[in-house]
């Protein structure tokens, strides 16, 4: 079946936003599905939609080992709200064509077990039905993920690879080449929501991003982990194609602030 893949559109969306003009940045915003309430899920997506290149929808997991307290807590609340992978895919699959037209590409980010629990072939099918462009699975390293990637690809869904500052050079190249949609460059060691680099990107970080960009070729490189302010976004601009903001969005929701305005500001209006 010549099923068109959806990760190309994801790449394209990031490239377009990055090239939208001076002072404009491609933002990939993250939100834990069903946080703070299930009812507000689609509304939150719609609020962010006009300003971002893509949205990462967090599939909550009971043991999020790469996440800091903010996302841990949002996951706990979401699970308590009854959010499951099945529910998320149903919500996304149930959107009207008009609603879909308003949304940027959607990426699911979650830990392996809920995905595994659904069964990979079913997962691939449901992701296709829900128009999911790609998956990010932080506890699925390259070696363990090859089959997962192959099954997902049959349904047109990609698998985004994460690269870390401690990843050896040759492995980073391999990861970049195996990544669909974009390359997720983990900007700092540690869990999500950690203290960002206040002084701005140092030579080590910019060099790392430069090398990833060279290795990724046409695939955009997005930096994430510990990025929460417009200043950080601006300092990173030019060193990568897009910036991923997660814990800061969750904090915004937690405090009941306007999440649409928040991501608009991050993106530079």
């Amino acid at each position, binding site marked *: 079946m010549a099923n068109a893949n959806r990760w190309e559109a994801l790449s394209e969306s990031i490239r377009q936003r990055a090239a939208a003009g001076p002072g404009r940045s491609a933002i990939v915003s993250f939100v834990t599905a069903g946080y703070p309430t299930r009812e507000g899920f689609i509304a939150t997506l719609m609020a962010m939609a006009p300003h971002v290149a893509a949205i990462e929808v967090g599939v909550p*997991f*009971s*043991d*999020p*080992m*790469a*996440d*800091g*307290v903010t996302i*841990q807590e949002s996951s706990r609340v979401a*699970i308590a709200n009854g959010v*499951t*992978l*099945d529910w998320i895919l149903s919500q996304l699959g149930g959107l009207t064509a008009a609603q879909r037209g308003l949304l940027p590409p959607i990426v699911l980010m979650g*830990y*392996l*077990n*809920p*995905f*595994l*629990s*659904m*069964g*990979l*072939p079913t997962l691939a099918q449901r992701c296709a039905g829900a128009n999911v462009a790609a998956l990010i699975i*932080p*506890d*699925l*390293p*390259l*070696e*363990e993920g090859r*089959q*997962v990637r*192959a*099954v997902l690809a049959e349904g047109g869904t990609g698998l985004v*690879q*994460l*690269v*870390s*500052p*401690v*990843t*050896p050079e040759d*492995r980073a190249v391999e*990861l970049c080449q195996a990544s669909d949609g974009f390359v997720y460059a*983990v900007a700092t*060691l*540690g*869990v999500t929501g*950690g203290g960002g680099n206040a002084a701005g990107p140092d030579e080590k970080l910019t060099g790392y991003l430069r090398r990833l960009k060279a290795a990724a070729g046409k695939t955009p490189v997005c930096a994430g982990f510990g990025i929460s302010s417009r200043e950080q976004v601006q300092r990173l601009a030019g060193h990568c194609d897009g910036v991923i903001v997660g814990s800061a969005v969750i904090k915004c929701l937690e405090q009941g602030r306007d999440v649409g305005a928040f991501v608009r500001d991050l993106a530079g209006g």
Partner: protein
Amino acid sequence: MGDFLAEMAALSRQRAERARAAVPLAEMERRALTLGRAREIPAGGFVLIAEVKLASPSEGLLGRVAAVPGSPEAIRQVVAQASVYGSAGAGLISVLSEPSRFGGERSHVAVAADAMGASAGVPVMRKDFLVDVYQVLEARAAGASAVLLIVRMLEDATLAEMCRAAERCGMTVIVEAFDEDDLARCERLMERFGRPGWLWVGVNTRDLSTLKVDAGRLEALASRLPAGVRCVAESGINSAADVRRYAAMGYSAALVGTALMRAADAGALCREMARAGADEVGRLAGAGRPWVKICGLRTAEDVAAAVEHGADAVGFVFAESVRRVTAAEAAALCAGVLSGVARIGVFKRPAPGEVLAVLERASLTHVQCDVEVAGAVRAALAADGRFLAAVVPVLRTGAGGSVQANGTVNPDVAAVVRASGLVLVEGAVSGAGELADHGVIAAVAGSMPGRVVVAGGLTAGNVRDALQRTGAAGVDVSSGVELARGVKDAGLIEAFCRAAGCVKRTAMNTVTTVSDPFATTHAAGSASAEVELGKLLSGAYPDARGRYGPFGGRFVPETLVANITRLERVMKEAFADRSFWDEFDSHAKEWIGRPTPVMFARSLSERWGVKVYFKREDLAHTGAHKINNALGQALLARRLGIKRIIAETGAGQHGVASAAACARVGFPCTVYMGAHDVERQAPNVQRMKRLGATVVPVTSGDATLRAAIDEALRAWVADPEGTHYLLGSAVGPHPFPQIVRTFQSVIGREARAQLMERIGGLPDSVFACVGGGSNAIGMFHGFLGDASVKIYGVEAGGHGDKTGEHSATMTHGRPGVLHGCYSYLLQDDAGQVSDSHSVSAGLDYPGVGPEHAFLHSIGRVSYVTAKDDAALEALNECCRHEGILPALEPSHALAAVKKWASQPGNAGKTVLVGFCGRGDKDMPILQAASPM
């Protein structure tokens, strides 16, 4: 001949020529013969050949320190090692004399022989790449009583000449084979010399072109070993369990080098291996029962019945018959058969292509066909590279048959019969239930002892009589176990097997297939339990992906991948480094207090009506088994070049052990502990702090062990290069389960040896509690290869069977990924990890180590549960009657033993319990549960 062998041969030839120039052949022969006949090695029994090898190309240095061959240091090492073997049950001591790659010297043979002559009198073998008859004489002149000759290096004529020289000196010769072709040459040599007791056949599993060990080869070639000859299993034998397995396959000797050179206590391992081999050979000899084949099977139930009731072979008919099955059907049926059971494809006069087509799909061990076409079939199999399926020719009695009335085989088929192992003899028409002429068969059986299988008209009622009258080695039944034509009956199969003297198989069941969720194409991955267990025992599991069957793996964020890869590399280097183990052993002895005792629990034994022995890990330093792993990993951490150690803890035992080990080895230590556990295990929190550790209470998640692991992993992600995560249980991403098991396996190794010493045998059962499973896996590893020992893992049953009320992962969970590995997991339908409960903090974990999941899936270990109240009751009983306060964790094992003891048939049995920790830490819980 491979490059390596060619190189060795060339060097060896040069050495022979130089030696001959110094001492002429005639003089060497005189020296050899004047020494008198070599020491003879008695026939029968099992011979452990222990090898002195100071280096090898695949392993590098094996001696204590590098030593120039022939130097005083080398000589000292050779004599020391040989002396250890000499008093530890070795039947023959092999000494490498190859200088270029194996650190040997001719003089090493001489000094070893001298040392032996003076003490135990164990004969010595010269092992080398011998190419010249001169070198055989040279060996004898140096005092060797045996030589090893590599068939592949030698022309038939030279081989025969060297054997004759050895025979003149009264020496034993091992002719070493690598494959079927070599074996065929050995067979011819045997025929030439008339199968004398001094001529043995060795099967080497190491491919001398790649130097890799293919352990499967011993098994694959087992069915092709020459009859009536001592066969030696060589290379890749690491444990007594390996020795036992190969002995069960028909190898009555094993040559062990690397494992003994590496062993911390070579004497103990040597003794254990020799005993395992002797036990197994003794058991087989005592069995003295015929080989039994159940033929014409068509359903999985009938195959299972045959296997369960102890048949040696199952037959699937591909010839025209009501019992005919297709290749695909046979493939499915074969998948359910244990590896020790032969799977025989039954043909009549097939075209060779037909046989190959079936072998393509079904994993058959033998091809049975009429003797008239057997030669052609064998040639076709060989041409296709299928050496592993042996051909069983069928001879028919009666008019027009291939056997004459006096038992003589027709001359046109005599050659193919001689070349075969088993030979089937039946009446004129096969599968007709016609009773064959027993007189004729007796005559055939007499001419081919141990090789004739009688078929035709056998039933449970007449099988004994038929065996007695024919003297056949085996029986083949088909219609005799059928209710109607082509319809087998499990009851009749059982009755036949019993009448023939088969022993029911209870130790192991076929695999419960757990599919690999990552596999996209479903090749029904069912292998037999025995094969799977063999992979674990031989070290093939964990494989390169860190998997035990489908379980295990390394599911970690990218930030940790480089770390884990480095950890695996450092682990391998350390485990192969003798100085690492020397240091570990010295700490283990004087700091931990190893070996911990095995104790007979007299009062509980009386009360429960079984013989209960405790392996007292509670007496290890810091009060639990956890210290073994904590020490080992702290020593590993030194090689990692990290700055600090972090650890998680549940009951606090691993936290205390880590704090202590870090203090001893010299690392700062931070321990993550669930806030709930900080409260219920307060005494241990104080101990950790006193030992200098920082304790971080974890309030996220369920605030128990699982949340502590989550948090420790997060801390590790934050500083992967400066931190080592000292994981305390046999869980987590590869290589942690392997590391933890390796350090904890001292428990089972010691316990087995101590019990053998004490009661002269193995226990009937072994029990240990399982949370993540570190003490249990350490204990179980000592006994996995002992098929007679039933092994039980005891999970925490909590206070109910509902989610959240227990920690019985294996009983109630299903496979999933948590904390970096694929294993059994308590989880809901959406894949969220469920909360667990146990009164014992150390068992309160929703996952379990991947190796346990594997052992569960192959049925080698049974996992049962014990509830909170039963554990508390057992704890109190142990306090009052044995004067020992056990931790709540092993109290679960005690509760399970008590229950087991009350079950019918278990009275008087012997049981070993992993008594993994003391209960002082549990005082707050005990006081709350039953105040005093």
